[in-house]
């Protein structure tokens, strides 16, 4: 029966799309061995799917067939009907029955290799810091504040102590989604300062698991606990008047004035699928490069290369993003809506008591509303696989010279 398996391997290498279950038995479907080991069912099925949506070419086909799925999980499985010894080991499978999650596992290793080879998108050197720049600190929601700070540093307007503290935020569901997305892309080592948020070096949990961990902790990540952030900075600066909490997307002119700049970069919010893919990629990258390099590759290698359909211009809450593509950020699933709303309301009351504006409730959390999708808005495996395959086929490898790094 292995001759039939080798026949199918040859068919797939030639760009074929026939499923294993329909592959003919007998001389018509047989072939001589083309290697020492028949590739696993996951690898073969991923190649078949790639053949369905594009032309992977011989080099990518070989890489797919020789890849191992990173991390723990089901081993490389044998094909039903062509197993070496089916009495022992994992049960052989029909590749058509494999979950898309299994195929994503294989794809992430290849994408991680691509990303390591591509490296970060080159960007112009940072300008010399302007001595006359405004003294400020920019903190809060990582998707709202980090890209702005990064761009201002590049322009020579980096933060320095002793001035105003600008705390950027939005409704709690969006900030939770932003924080998780930021973790997926930056892994929380260094610049985001998120290492103590219960996620460590073990990888970022999936969106539902991550929310569950925060429900158990009965808190929110320090960085998006806006009243806590404001209180800390009031204590450090010694006065409430220096600390500004801005939670309304219409306050961008205020932000410009506080920071002393004429224009602000327009950051983007990746889709839930892109964040989920980045999360998986970060685990695979962890097997290849140092944490600092991994962070750089995710933020300045992957992020700017994402297909534009996976990004939406970001000006405030997730629900109010002016989308440039069909990108939808993670949505709080039904089972988490109550605690997120209660914690958001509590946060809003604390902000008002401290003399700041109240916090919006957030999309999908109004009484009686329900926006949750079956995947918890965290990027279902099918969508993630589709994105991964598009990228494997080269959707992200075009020339990027001159394209600004958005993060």
């Amino acid at each position, binding site marked *: 029966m292995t001759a039939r398996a080798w026949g199918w391997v040859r068919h797939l290498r030639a760009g074929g799309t026939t499923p294993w279950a329909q592959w003919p038995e007998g001389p018509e479907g047989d072939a001589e061995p083309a290697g*020492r*080991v*028949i*590739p*696993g069912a996951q690898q073969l099925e991923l190649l078949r799917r790639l053949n369905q949506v594009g032309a992977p070419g011989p080099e990518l086909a070989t890489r797919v067939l*020789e890849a*191992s*799925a*990173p*991390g*723990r*999980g*089901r*081993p*490389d499985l044998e094909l039903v009907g062509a197993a*070496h*010894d089916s*009495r*022992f*080991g*994992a*049960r052989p499978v029909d590749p058509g029955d494999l979950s898309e999650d299994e195929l994503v596992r294989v794809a992430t*290793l290849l994408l991680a290799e691509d990303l390591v080879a591509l490296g970060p998108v080159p960007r112009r050197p940072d300008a010399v810091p302007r001595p006359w720049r405004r003294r400020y600190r920019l903190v809060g929601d990582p998707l709202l504040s980090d890209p702005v700070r990064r761009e201002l540093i590049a322009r020579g307007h980096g933060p*320095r*102590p*002793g001035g105003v503290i600008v705390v950027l935020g939005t409704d709690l569901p969006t900030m939770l989604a932003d924080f998780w997305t930021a973790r997926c892309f930056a892994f929380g080592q260094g610049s985001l300062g998120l290492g*103590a948020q*219960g*996620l*460590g*070096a*073990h*990888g970022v949990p999936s969106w539902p698991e991550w929310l*569950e*961990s925060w429900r*158990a*902790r009965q808190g929110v990540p320090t960085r998006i606990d806006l009243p806590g952030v404001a209180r800390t900075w009031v204590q450090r600066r010694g006065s409430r008047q220096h600390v500004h909490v801005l939670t309304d997307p219409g306050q961008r002119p205020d932000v410009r004035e506080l920071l002393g700049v004429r224009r602000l970069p327009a950051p983007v919010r990746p889709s839930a699928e892109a964040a989920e893919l980045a999360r998986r990629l970060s*685990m*695979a990258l*962890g*097997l*290849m*490069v*140092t*944490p600092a390099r991994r962070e750089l590759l995710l933020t300045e290698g992957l992020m700017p290369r994402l297909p534009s359909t996976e990004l939406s211009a970001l000006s405030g809450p997730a629900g109010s993003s002016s989308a440039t593509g069909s990108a939808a950020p993670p949505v709080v699933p039904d089972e988490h809506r109550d605690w997120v709303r209660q914690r958001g309301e509590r946060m809003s009351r604390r902000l008002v008591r401290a003399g700041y504006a109240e916090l919006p409730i957030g999309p999908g959390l109004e009484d009686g509303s329900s926006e949750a999708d079956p995947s918890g808005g965290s990027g279902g495996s099918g969508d993630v696989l589709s994105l991964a395959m598009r990228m494997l086929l080269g959707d992200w490898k075009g020339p990027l010279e001159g394209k600004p790094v958005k993060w």
Partner: protein
Amino acid sequence: MVSRKRVLVHVGTPKTGTSHLQDVLFRNRAVLADHGICYPAERFDSHFLAALDLMKLNWGGLELEAVGAWDALAEQVRAWPGTSIVSHEILATASRMQVDRALSTLTGDGPTDAGDVEVHVVLSVRDLVRQIPAEWQENVKHRSAISYARFLETITDPERDSRIGTWFWGVQEIPDIVNRWAATLPPERVHLVTVPAPGAPRDELWHRFSQAFGLDGIDLDLTPERANPSLGVPETALLRRVNRKFAPRVDPADYRPLVRELLAHQTLSRRRRSDRLTLPPALHTWAQEVSGTWIEEIRTRGYDVVGDLDDLLGPPPPETWSDPDAPAEAEVAGAAVDAIGALLIEAARLREVEGRLTHELAETRAALDRSYLRPTYRLREKAVHALEHSGVGRGLLALYRRARGRSSRSA
């Protein structure tokens, strides 16, 4: 006669004395090298890191240190003219493709018998009756809150498609491991080392390892320095309860030193008088039947067995069985008191460290604040320092201070 170059690859299984074996090999590298045997390792866990790299496994952050480790190990093996030993138990789960890569890189070409290189696969094995509770305990020591009953249900599920089931059978099913690692090797190059039955002399397992690896006659330091100590029933039950309540709130990076090392290995494993974990009597027959099919298969294939294949049947069921899902609460409380004591002592130590760091931080922050002051301040500071080095300068400073109307000397 010219002796052929040999590579002995020890691929498992877990909980078969592998930590002790690897410790002995690591500490005696120089002696072994004198006898023509290479154990290529710069640190104790070098082969673990290499296995993580080969199999693309994440392991609580350790994989960060594993980048390129397999190729580095293979390069040393290829460069050694005599016998080389590679050993780690997680290699048992390697896929066929990974095995192909492993053996190709170790030998430099073909997977099994390239040129003058002779590949041997060594597998140390223990009965399922003892392996099953040991594997559950390992899960608990790695943050799992799964009950013993649920664990048993998972691994006895014939589908074996859960994460736990996949891993368990991947590292325990002897014929499958050999299928993946040694499908093309002649049976005399596959060596199964059985772990002796309970009650055997303490050094019996080492004698078997020594025979399998060809170490007899070499004067090795066998002092036990590393082991993976076991916990009793109440201690494991306590740890599982801790996991259930707190594991989601503790970083893996904190869990490893605080829970696995401090609580499990350094504190709870010292309570040796509590009941030991064993397989429920109801599963003995099933476990022995599974082992029986493996024994039959191994005999049929004609592998080199070091020890007794009947050791794989395991000990008989205990007369009384202690259920870790319903432990004696007084014993759990005793274990909890020991755990609290250990954590108190550790907390006191960390408070001391915190106090020292707080002091250092305050000093650093003050220095930082000074450095952020206006540039003219630093200019004046430099000027004052320069002036204070000469008599004329000191005179000018005194004049200036009198003119300003204050007498402080410090800038």
